[in-house]
């Protein structure tokens, strides 16, 4: 089986998974008590008004009809209208995507850039101070709650030393880059970096700690394998043995974890987004749930689900690329 066929297969899988996600998301509404009408109608609304609202929202139709309506409009990119704000849900939901993706990618970037070298150093200097330092760091990183770390960073770095802004996202990466390209002005990009730094560090710390551990133990595992001894036996210098041979195999499972984490970060950065008033999808979803704005809830969940599936396809492709055994199996 070629890489191309492998990817087509994975994509077809992905389509079914997305379909499943949409179905569950649609069903959620009927599993939660209370009609959406209650969220829209005033408290003293008459029975007649309530019925009209239900009809406007399409709630009076049979379930299967509502389901297929939803499915087909979703296929056309239509997520319905926000119950409370009357604006197209897709505009609101998709408007939140860039901030979320920026934060997730920035956090992952910090994590990968820091953790893999750290894990490798720890493995290379097993039972030496550098190893204990890295292990301690990863233990602390894994056990530090996000909200506490975020608040501490704000208190120390922003409030005390004034190094970083406390919160907000004055502009996105795309306009910042556009500014750089069209006007040659790097100010926007710097501003963006300045604002995203603390939230990205906050979100990335746990992730860094996790991958440091995985890299360390994975590398130690690989270094104990027979092929490493064989590589030494043929006279390869230690650098080649460690980086060309062992590290390559260490990275295979790590790519999977990084991918899965990236998927999780897209919907799961709620706390960090809240602490830093970062206008992302996570905080948006929570707010929508609080006011039972179903089109927004469903839209957000579908976007999160689709992103997860997309990231996974990319990860599978990378995995197949790094580990040739995957494609043939």
């Amino acid at each position, binding site marked *: 089986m070629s890489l191309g066929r492998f990817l087509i297969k994975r994509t077809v899988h992905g389509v079914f998974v997305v379909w499943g996600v949409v179905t569950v998301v649609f069903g959620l509404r009927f599993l939660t008590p209370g009609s959406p009408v209650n969220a829209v109608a005033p408290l003293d609304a008459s029975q007649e008004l309530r019925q009209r609202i239900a009809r406007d929202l399409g709630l009076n139709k049979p379930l299967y009809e509502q389901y297929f309506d939803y499915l087909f409009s979703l296929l056309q990119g239509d997520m319905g209208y926000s119950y409370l704000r009357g604006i197209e849900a897709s505009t609101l939901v998709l408007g939140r995507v860039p901030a979320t993706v920026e934060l997730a990618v920035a956090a992952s970037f910090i994590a990968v850039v820091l953790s893999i070298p750290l894990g490798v150093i720890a493995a290379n200097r097993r039972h030496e101070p550098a190893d204990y330092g890295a292990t301690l760091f990863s233990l602390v990183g894994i056990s530090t709650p996000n909200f506490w770390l975020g608040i501490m960073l704000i208190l120390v770095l922003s409030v005390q030393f004034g190094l970083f802004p406390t919160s907000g996202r004055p502009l996105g990466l795309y306009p910042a880059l556009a500014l750089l390209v069209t006007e040659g002005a790097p100010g926007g990009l710097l501003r963006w970096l300045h604002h995203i730094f603390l939230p990205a560090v906050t979100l990335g710390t746990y992730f860094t700690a996790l991958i440091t551990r995985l890299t360390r133990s994975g590398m130690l595992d690989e270094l104990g394998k*027979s092929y490493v001894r064989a590589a030494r036996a*043929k*006279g390869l210098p230690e650098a*080649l043995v460690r*980086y060309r041979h062992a590290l*390559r195999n260490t990275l295979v499972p790590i790519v999977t974890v990084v991918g899965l984490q990236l998927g999780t970060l897209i919907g799961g950065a709620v706390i960090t987004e809240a602490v830093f008033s970062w206008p992302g999808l996570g905080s948006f979803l929570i707010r929508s749930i609080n006011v039972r704005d179903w089109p927004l809830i469903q839209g957000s969940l579908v976007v999160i689900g689709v992103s997860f599936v997309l990231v996974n396809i990319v990860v599978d492709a990378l995995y197949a690329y790094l*580990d*040739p*055994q995957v494609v*043939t199996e």
Partner: protein
Amino acid sequence: MAARDLLRVRDLSTRFFTGEGQINAVESVDFDVREGEVFGIVGESGSGKSVTAFSLLDLVESPGQITSGELWYRDEDLAAEFREQRPEAVDGEFVDLRRTSERVRRSLRGPSFSMVFQDPMSSFNPTLTVGEQIAEAVEVQRRASTNPRSTRSRTQGYGLGRMLAGMVLPDSGYVDEDSEAQAVKLLEEVGIPDPAERYDAYPHQFSGGMLQRAMVAQALAGEPDLLVADEPTTALDVTIQAQILNLLDDLQAETGMSIVLITHNLGVIARMCDRVGVMYAGEIVERGTLEEVFEQSVHPYTEGLLGSIPDLDDPAPRLQPIEGSVPNLLDAEMEDRCYFADRCPKAMEKCLDKPPEIECEGEHAAKCVLAETEYHDSRRLPEDYFEEVADD
């Protein structure tokens, strides 16, 4: 004229320092390997055969460590190199590798020593093509040829950046075309059909036998003087085993290299070896030429091993196993006596002292009091002697 010695191993001990205590995996082992011969090391699992092999190439990994011994290797150039700076490490054309540096020992892997491992499937990197791994072995020697002791010459122009790029992009450029061509030639030499095509295959796309051939090709890349083959046929089907042995035989005849063949299979030893050492509990308990050891064996352990081979011409109703199993090699539990005594059907009072190595005729020697002629003077131990000692 008798062949010259290529390697003289003296008093080699390798220990593992584990949480449970010190394990004496190899204890005070002596043997010689001559030019162009096959020296066999035979013993059951856990007797220290593989650790001996790793010790020869300085491939013992933590928590293991070679704790004593000398490895005298005959190499005129190396001897000339060290005669001035470390005269105590040189004896004629021989150099004691243990008294050289790690860098020197590493520089000998490939052009002087190389190794064929037990399980070919796990001894190739699963994420690189077999051809590239062989070409890498060629390349590293080609690069080292100008300055054999330097590490830098082996990585020149191939820094960490290119290594990392090589993980993401194909063709990372460590090996050049000549090395690739040489690798294809090596694959052909070891009898792999369509070598140019198989070059690009990954280890999991090979059968066990073909992969073991590829491993032999890899071991030949540096044109070694000594090939250490650690159970090269254990992981293979019986029919394939014979093919690999034939291959080693042919290659040895062709290149004149020496082979240290490690196996638990006495049939393999009988088929391949000129001289043989029998290992038990980290020691070589009997050594000599194949005939001496197999036909005039002195040590009851060797006799026991030979007695446990089924004979097709004279099928006995039951094979004669050696009772018990190899002792735990924890230093704390090793008493200063013959380690085989408590399994030995001929144990005597004398066996409670550690037997010295006793020379018999020719090259034959054994660590057993039975090799002495006056052993009759000693009293046999009662059969349940060790059980009673254990009860106390």
